[in-house]
């Protein structure tokens, strides 16, 4: 809550992520065409579209995880907090620190819940020996933010991999928070969860808005509608429509969008 207050008092970029003329190729296959987007700071923006439309590709180029594949070529800019992350003077480790990522399949590390949460903090604060009580505070506040504290506070030494899938996914979100990222990318974060888990994680994502800019890819249109403030519809590597979620679903401007949300294809 304090962070939100501070965000308002400081001059902050209106848009957390801006792409301009973003084109991306996998080898010779072009996956993104001239993508121009402005993602609002502190909001939840969902990316929807049929399989293969490029929404995951777009998400994965925002923290430069795509380039590990080796055969990916990118043209255009992606600015995060007004800095092009593809500039040569950008340090990849800092990009990953600023831009957290949550995967489809929860991937906690096979270490204790406590160590999972402290992992990022430890690798980014080498040498600065934080005291045990500082660490406890970090663990507690991260778990509290993801609404997991009450459930696991008595078993912080249990392995993260032993939790239920829903709890694992929450833990995966929690472990991003101690390094204070500005953007959270989520690649279908609920698709491995049952309906109850989905609802719980959606509730959590909703709680995090304001403090973090969240970009979420989903196959589930109902989820986009429930859990996002703005929505982007993509098709064949192009952005078709970008609107406030409610408007996109009620009064879509493009025919393709209307067809998709009515279930005529996808």
């Amino acid at each position, binding site marked *: 809550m304090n962070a939100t207050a501070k965000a308002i008092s400081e001059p902050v970029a209106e848009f957390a992520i801006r792409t301009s003329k973003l084109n991306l190729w996998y080898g010779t296959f072009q996956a993104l065409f001239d993508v121009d987007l402005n993602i609002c700071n502190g909001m939840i923006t969902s990316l929807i579209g049929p399989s293969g439309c490029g929404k995951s590709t777009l998400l994965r180029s925002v*923290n430069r*995880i795509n380039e*590990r594949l*080796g055969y990916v070529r990118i043209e255009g800019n992606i600015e995060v907090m007004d800095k092009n992350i593809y500039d040569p003077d950008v340090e*990849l*480790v*800092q*990009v*990953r*620190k600023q831009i*957290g*990522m949550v*995967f489809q*399949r929860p*991937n*906690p*590390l*096979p*270490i204790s819940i406590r160590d999972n949460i402290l*992992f*990022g903090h430890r*690798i*980014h604060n080498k040498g600065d020996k934080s005291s045990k009580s500082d660490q406890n505070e970090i663990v507690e506040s991260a778990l509290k933010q993801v609404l997991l504290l009450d459930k696991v506070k008595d078993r912080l030494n249990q*392995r993260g*991999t*032993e939790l239920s899938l829903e709890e694992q996914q929450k833990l*995966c979100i929690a*472990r*991003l928070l101690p*390094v204070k990222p500005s953007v959270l990318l989520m690649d279908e974060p609920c698709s491995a969860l049952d309906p109850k888990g989905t609802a719980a994680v959606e509730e959590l994502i909703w709680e995090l808005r304001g403090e973090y800019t969240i970009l979420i890819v989903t196959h589930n249109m109902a989820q986009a509608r429930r859990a996002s403030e703005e929505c982007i519809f993509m098709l064949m590597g192009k952005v078709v429509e970008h609107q406030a979620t409610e408007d996109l679903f009620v009064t879509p401007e493009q025919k393709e969008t209307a067809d998709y949300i009515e279930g005529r294809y996808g």
Partner: protein
Amino acid sequence: MFAESALNVRNKRVQNLFRILFLMMTVLLIIPVVIILATLIAKGGSIISIDFLFTDPTNGMTAGGIFPALLGTVWIVAVALLASVPLGVAAAIYLNEYAGDNWFTRIIQLAIINLAGVPSIVHALFGVGAFVIFFGFGTSILAASLTLAIMTLPVVIVSTRESLRAVPQAFREACWNMGATRWQTIRRVVLPNAVSGILTGVILEVSRTTGETAPIMFTGAAFFLPFLPQGVFDQTMALSLHLFVVATQVPGVPDNLAFGVALVLIAMVLLMNSISIAFRMYLRGKKKW
């Protein structure tokens, strides 16, 4: 309409035939192991005692114990491990965690496979040329161990790579996406989860190294020595060569002594293998993914 047809009967008969055939082949596997062990125990078991293990051979090796050979084997294996494990594990980490799939790694891959296929006698001659003569180690524990190390390197590399590969990629992804470097990922996540497999491979390598004869007989193992090795530049007796010597080279060795040496050698190998298997089962039980 669901009754058995003539074709069904025939198919079933063929199916049973093959099942029994394969079963018999499998049983055949066990027979040599059982016969070898039974013979060794029957003919050599009587000589095994604490004295046999911890005294020197006497009367031109026709009596007494095997202590110098036993100790020599421990020396050779230990030094070989010191050389091959760090090298092999480091190479495996490089190949699995850093190297991309390019011509360079493919050539290394090919080299490892070929190294594994080189006959041990060729390794022995290489050892003589490289370590005994060129590096000037003389016939010594060091030369013998380095020869063995090179011979077992492919085993260490392959088994280490297998254990590294068994660590789910999702763990690495998780680390990388929090901004961890490759090394941080390896040290904090990959190695702790692969160490059990790596150790298992190392123990198996020990058991293999223990029994090797050809690579050490020209490079460091002696026929008979009246003293124990004091350092890596000394020659030493070794159990495997000692078995060859007492079984074929020295007249008048009582049967039970030769079989006793063989029994000790095979017991060492089986013990190592059992430890390795037990260790693996224990650690596998502890894993939770």
